[in-house]
């Protein structure tokens, strides 16, 4: 976009600007819509559970240890991305790359564990069609998984960009990292809700 005007660099006007950068505001709004998305799914979960005649206990039907492991992985990945941001903040490139790589690896780890979990259930011939409980379980965790993939793409992208001078030194780079961090925390929080709702209640 070098040869045309790029409003993402348009920092607005002192008296009519909210003070929050466009990118950050955009991310927040995006997260608002995401909240509506998952809130709807949780509402559906509650409704379906209330109308249903038989609802299994999460810990009987699902693999709690693996899910606990995943919870740990995801929470620690939230920590690592904060570290990455801190490093980017004080312009420490190698530090940033280290922590960001850690984040990406952890999220990949999450997916691997999830794959094992799914695989085990499929092996038992259990699938979304089995019952409404498994239907909502596969749908919600699946959708969450897609969000993890998205996160991996973004974080991986930032990792790659940091290797290139013009990106790393771009005035908005820090903001992009921050945006990615916000998103990643959100994905994490969703899981914090999913875990008890599906596995422990």
């Amino acid at each position, binding site marked *: 976009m070098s040869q045309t*005007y790029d409003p993402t660099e348009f920092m607005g*006007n002192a008296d*009519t600007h909210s003070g929050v950068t466009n990118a950050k505001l955009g991310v927040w709004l995006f997260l608002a819509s995401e909240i509506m998305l998952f809130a709807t799914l949780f509402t559906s979960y509650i409704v*379906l559970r209330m109308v249903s005649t038989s609802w299994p206990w999460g810990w009987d039907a699902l693999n709690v240890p693996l899910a606990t492991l995943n919870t740990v992985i995801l929470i620690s990945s939230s920590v690592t991305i904060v570290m990455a941001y801190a490093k980017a903040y004080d312009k420490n490139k190698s530090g940033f790359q280290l922590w960001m790589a850690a984040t990406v690896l952890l999220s990949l780890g999450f997916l691997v564990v999830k794959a094992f979990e799914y695989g085990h259930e499929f092996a038992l011939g259990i699938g*979304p069609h089995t019952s409404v409980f498994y239907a909502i379980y596969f749908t919600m965790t699946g959708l969450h998984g897609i969000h993890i993939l998205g996160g991996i793409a973004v974080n991986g992208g930032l990792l790659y960009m940091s290797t290139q001078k013009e990106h790393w030194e771009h005035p908005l780079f820090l903001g992009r990292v921050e945006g990615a961090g916000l998103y990643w925390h959100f994905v994490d929080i969703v899981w914090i809700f999913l875990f008890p709702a599906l596995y422990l209640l």
Partner: protein
Amino acid sequence: MSHDDHGHGHHELTFWEKYVFSVDHKVIGLQYLITSFIFLLVGFGLMGLMRWQLAFPGTPIPFFGHLFPADLAPNGVMSGEFYNALGAMHGTIMVFLGVVPLAVGAYGNYVLPLQIGAPDMAFPRMNMMSYWTYLPGGILMLSSFLMPGGAAQSGWTSYPPLSIINPGQTMWLLSMVILITSSLLGAINFLVTTINMRAPGMSLWRMPVFCWAQFVTSVLLLLAFPPLEAASVLQLMDRVFHTSFYMPKDLVILGKAYMGSGGGQPLLWQHLFWFLAHPEVYVLVLPPMGIVAEIIANNTRKPLHGYKTLVFSMIAIGVMSFMVWAHHMFISGMSPALGNFFLVTTMIISVPSVAILTCLIFSLKGGSIRYNLPMAYALAFLPLFGIGGLTGLPLGLTVTDIYLHDTYYVIGHFHFVVVTGSIIALMGGTYYWFPKWYGRKMNDTLGWIHFWGTTTSMTGIFLPMLFMGLAGASRRLYDPTAQLHNLPVQGWNVVSTISAYCLGVFQLPFIYNFFNSMWRGEKTPENPWQATTLEWACPSPPPHGNFEKTPVVYRGPYEYSVPGRKTDFWMQTDKN
């Protein structure tokens, strides 16, 4: 880089960058405009086929009848499946591919940044993306007609279990998810732009009503669409992976027991759908209301009556619209006690709407009204939308809705608000902003023909529907004459069909006028309507980056006929 010198430092763009994959909000706006116009015509075409079947059930469709494959229209006579597909697609296309992209994608995109003095949208590339997700989504939606089994047949509301067992629905759901994504991208962009990109001096209370309308609309889109996305995903699961989110136990479909596990709840879909679709209907009408406000202020040559009342009413509508959804479900089997709650909220939401119309009508008082084309449309909007809105009240009353629900009264109601309301206002907007888009104006004579033809034939289509509804004629009837109580009012169907075809004919002058004026229309000055708002403070069509130098705003949007000035309009940008 500061925003002043944006004009410089960009070289010639290639054709592709300039017209196809452009990131310029004006080009994208026009892309939206033309595309949604075409989808409107498509929706109109589908409806034209339905109208024939409704007026002359069981007779071959003239001209086109034999073009359809035999399973859709055996020897030219429309089949029930085909009728239902047309109905569902008409509704979907008109709402999600026609009016919303036109009102938000086209007018919002083009006019909003200009009116707030911004060089472009906050995220130009995202803006391009939202168009380039909208178009494929639309094409996918249309292509579902070519699928085996045809397009979705369960109404635009796609109530399960019917939508789960009917063909075509999968494509519908997929394209809906794509279209929703596009709208979300747009909504975020609009909000950030309005919040962050306003020119110096353009405080919120100096924004034109149209900008406020777009702002509220974007909030609605942002918060109301994700629930439908989730609901669609669940329905997709039901169809593709045979889950049972919406399928209760022990269904026996055409003599066969349904294979799914059961245990789901069909009402869940209705709640989720209407939680989107009610805010959605206000998405359909708020931007047009904004357009009407702009045009009225401009052509009465005086400030709007109750600018703040208008804005607060729109915000109130926005908030309330999340609390009325179940007035579509009074007799759906949900707890009747809930009915009372939604009865009250529905009556409450009609209050701000009345306030808006009242303000717009009071704005005429004391004015010096110029009767030009845009004004004609804006004025036609008031009483016609009024009819539509008023007919919403008996529907909102639980008791009367027992009888009126799912009759043509409902069809009449919402076509009055959406066609003689939104579409009329949007057409007015085309005449009003055409000079901005192309630096030329549309031909008046053709315009007036279009105006009178359109308004009268629209009334001719939809007024009969109200009478049919009172006589108890149900909607979505492939063959209305199959039910005895419809026979006396069948004549109205003929009236309505003939008017519909007239309406189609009267669009021809408009289409010709539109494209002809693009190149051969009479040239106009920079500010042909002597308007005060910012979009007229830059060349028409505006260059890339819109304003030579960032405009500075000194006053409210509608400072017309200020005493002691020689011109009767005082632009927001003139220092004095």
